[in-house]
């Protein structure tokens, strides 16, 4: 159960990503071309609920059912958020897919997503190789 819980929570996330259709190319294009507000509303309402969760957890400092301290990580500022973020944005538009939906597409039977995953793994490998030469 200790490990299985992550699989179950992943399933929860996968079901909602799929039913919200954020896993479809069409929905991502509609967002970037401002054809429908759905994606902006989804991200906005997700952040509102997520922020409420983070606030509640910070306030009550709960332990998980397995007795672990709940730790909320904080990301330090670095240049990569600009450079990498921009490159990811280009890829997000071209593929119509961000990382979570790649796995959802594969599970949902869209096997062309194997190309997206292969590309993403090659990109991560390229980053591992280039990391010493890139601005942090």
């Amino acid at each position, binding site marked *: 159960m200790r490990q299985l819980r992550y699989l179950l929570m992943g399933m929860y996330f996968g079901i909602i990503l799929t039913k919200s259709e954020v896993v479809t190319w069409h929905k991502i294009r509609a967002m970037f071309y401002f054809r429908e507000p759905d994606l902006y509303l989804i991200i906005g309402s997700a952040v509102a609920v997520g922020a409420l969760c983070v606030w509640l957890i910070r306030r009550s400092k709960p332990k998980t059912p397995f007795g672990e301290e709940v730790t909320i990580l904080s990301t330090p500022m670095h240049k990569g958020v600009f450079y990498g973020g*921009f490159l990811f944005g280009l890829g997000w538009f071209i593929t119509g897919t961000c990382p979570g939906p790649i796995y959802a597409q594969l599970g949902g039977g869209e096997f062309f997503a194997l190309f997206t995953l292969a590309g993403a793994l090659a990109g991560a490998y390229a980053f591992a190789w280039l990391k010493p030469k890139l601005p942090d």
Partner: protein
Amino acid sequence: MTTFILNPWPWWISGPLIGLTVGLLLFLGSRNLGVSSSFRHLCALAFPKSSLPYLATDNVREASWNLLFVAGIALGAFVAVRFLSAHPVEFLPQHYHSLSGALKLLGGGFLVGLGTRWARGCTSGHAIMGLSNFQKPSLYAVLSFFAGGLCAALIAKIFFGALS
């Protein structure tokens, strides 16, 4: 009710439920939502003897939760498509099922992998988790995601007439 579940869910249902994932993962698992680090872990697993520090220093034990989580995403999508949808879900458009489509997915996927690892997060880690935690780096990351995507949209519109 059944029809409601079998149809695509509106933003005011799916958005809050996506946000709830942040709370579920923290409260039940003490983990911070994120998906793109799985690319690093999969590379580290594929090249266990790599001398590249980024892969060699990856702690696969520590990462196992993340790989289970993304496997769960795939399983969840299977359940959603198979049992919770009245109509087939069109993930990619027909014209992507071609050689040129495959090349676009490979090239675009490369940018997704390189970009998210450089930025240390994607739409899940920065846009949902990071913004929920009011982190400035995540805000800059999200603005950069959209800068990149909107630039690509503009270029596609000018040179290829939108749809491709």
